[in-house]
């Protein structure tokens, strides 16, 4: 089959670029460990409290060591459960010190939800039967909106909280 000379150059350059691109992605993923979240940890969606992390008292942000935190979240239609404060009121705003490492763990007892701290890399699908988790370091102080970015029903857009990264 005849391929025009210029088309050969064009395809060689294009395929060469593609290979370089894929090598960079692969290097990032397998050497630097920047895979998107995926752990395959299962949970019974009808009994999430059987898992220590999602017991009522363990929800929300907890410090586990110097500069290390765990954030346990239950996403349900149409609410993020981040635990309760001293007065027993639901927490809708959390403060995280800048540069601290936060392990986010989320699950849902009902339908599929999104978990996106808008403007950061913390972006996960939350699906019934699985625990979504990723470790994030917030480097830029400011207020971020935690939004549900997968359609979960008529109140989908009312499912939010705020995350403040403080100095």
């Amino acid at each position, binding site marked *: *089959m*005849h*391929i*025009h000379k*210029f*088309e050969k150059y*064009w*395809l060689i350059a*294009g*395929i060469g670029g*593609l290979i370089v*691109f894929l090598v960079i*992605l*692969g290097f*990032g*993923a397998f050497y630097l460990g920047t*895979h*998107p*979240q*995926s*752990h*395959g*940890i*299962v*949970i*019974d*969606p009808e009994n999430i409290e059987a898992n220590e992390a999602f017991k009522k008292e363990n929800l929300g942000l907890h410090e586990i060591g110097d500069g290390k935190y765990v954030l346990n979240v239950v996403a349900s*239609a*149409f609410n993020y459960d981040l635990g309760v404060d001293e007065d027993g009121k639901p927490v*809708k705003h959390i403060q995280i010190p800048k540069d601290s490492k936060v392990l986010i763990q989320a699950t849902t007892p*009902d*339908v*599929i939800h*999104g978990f*996106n*701290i*808008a*403007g950061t*890399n913390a*972006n996960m*699908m939350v*699906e*019934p*039967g*699985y*625990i979504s988790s990723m470790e994030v370091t917030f480097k830029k102080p400011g*207020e*971020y*909106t935690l*939004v549900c*970015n*997968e*359609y979960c*029903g*008529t109140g*989908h*857009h009312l499912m*939010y*909280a*705020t995350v403040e990264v403080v100095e």
Partner: protein
Amino acid sequence: MAIEKLETYQDERLPLVITKQESRLYMSFIYVAFIALLIGGLMGLLQVLVRSGHFTLPAGIDYYQVLTVHGVILALVLTTFFIIGFQFALMGKTVGISDRQRRLGWLSFWTMTIGTAITATTILLGKASVLYTFYAPLQAHPAFYIGLTLVIVGSWIAAFVNFHQLAVWKKKHPGEKSPLLAFMVCINMAMWLICSIGVAVSVLFHIIPWSLGWIPSINVLLSRTLFWYFGHPLVYFWLLPAYMAWYAIIPKIIGGKIFSDALARLSFVLFLFFSIPVGLHHQLTEPGLDSTWKFIQVVLTLMVVIPSLMTAFSMFATFEITGRKKGYGGLFGWLKHLPWKDVRFVAPFVGMLAFIPGGAGGIINASHQMNSLVHNTIWVTGHFHLTVATTVVLTFFGVAYWLIPHLTGRTLTKSINNLGLVQTYLWAIGMTIMSAAMHIQGLLGGPRRSNFSDYGGTEQAAEWGWYQLAQAIGGSILFIAIILMVYIVAKLAFFAPKGEEEFPIAEEEENAEPTPMWLENWKLWIAITIALILFAYTVPIMDVIQNAPPGSPPFDWPIGNS
């Protein structure tokens, strides 16, 4: 004389004549497509207005109901009906259709139309606000899924008729290469058949029994994985008919020849290979799938860069060669020869331009890590409004300008042509504003598929509001363009002056190298396609089934359906 004519026909492969009876079948598909455009476009207008924050839906209509109509009627109905009507016309013109095949074509049409009516009714009754992706465990009324199944089954009938049309032709023309457009149609339908089996299995054996309460729970991840096994080839099912027009029709419109018949076929074969084993790149941020397999499918996904580069080269090579033949020299002088006042060319050309940012955005979406930045943000919505809602749709409009009058025995007049040019520019302006605003808002974290919300009054949400206002402006311009298009279609179908409009099919250069016959090795192409699918999906699907969590019961109350 008669014999002589017959010989000319056989030598030059003059295209066949489409009869009145055939035209009625092809036009029926196209009418439904443009009715869908009007309804879906109106829904789109309502969405951007609501999201601007300055408008609320009357009579208790829910935003997500409107969004479901928009997605289903444009992404599934408009596209599928137009494509099948267009492909039938291409087959009728290049290989012919028998009476029996035509009757089966009607069966396909009615199956799809009845399916659409059932699904549409269910959505309008507020029983199926699950969006066009219908992710379990959100549960719509069973009729929603049954209607969609009928649409798919109807499209399968069309696929088998198309295969049969080509087979009959090949039997009559042993040892000859098939007409390029018929080859392309059959590649697209083969891909469609192979991919839609995934969603059909999921819907028939999984979702429908579960929605009827026959089985108590569903494997959510399996249903999603089967959906995306179908969902990504779906976008190529939209795109390939546009490529058919680019490769084999546009050259004729600009007065040129096909750049390379063999390369056009090769690129379609590559699309067949690399459209299907790639669905996991839509599921990159999901918790239950293995990262290595996600990466493997990312690599397979990006293989489509190769046929895409081939297509881009072919297009611009055709433009340049044609221009130079007409005597336009200089580095870019040949651009001048292009028919900038012919809407049959301009509309698809604007579509091609949109595919440059559209394709680049697609590479970002599929890029393993970079996906986390944009996943489920409105960037993605901006992306596919460039690819499907501009590249594909403007090319379909470009086809409609000559196909409709050709089938209805009318002509594309100068004034309709000029109206079409206005339509194209309005579309380009409206989409540039709307899609750019969506892309930027997405990069700032704004979520997709969401009703208006101030998210508790955060600064970020206030910033998103400005982009949503821009989307309302762009979307309103687009709606005006849709009204104009529907007007043009009505005019071409019922009111334009009677006459003969050309069905432009480009030919090869007279001294073109022969196309190698191995390109017609269907068994090999299908075998490679299936092998790639088995390679990419066997382990992930086994994993999803073997390591499954307890299943999910149906949830109907979140969509207001309890």
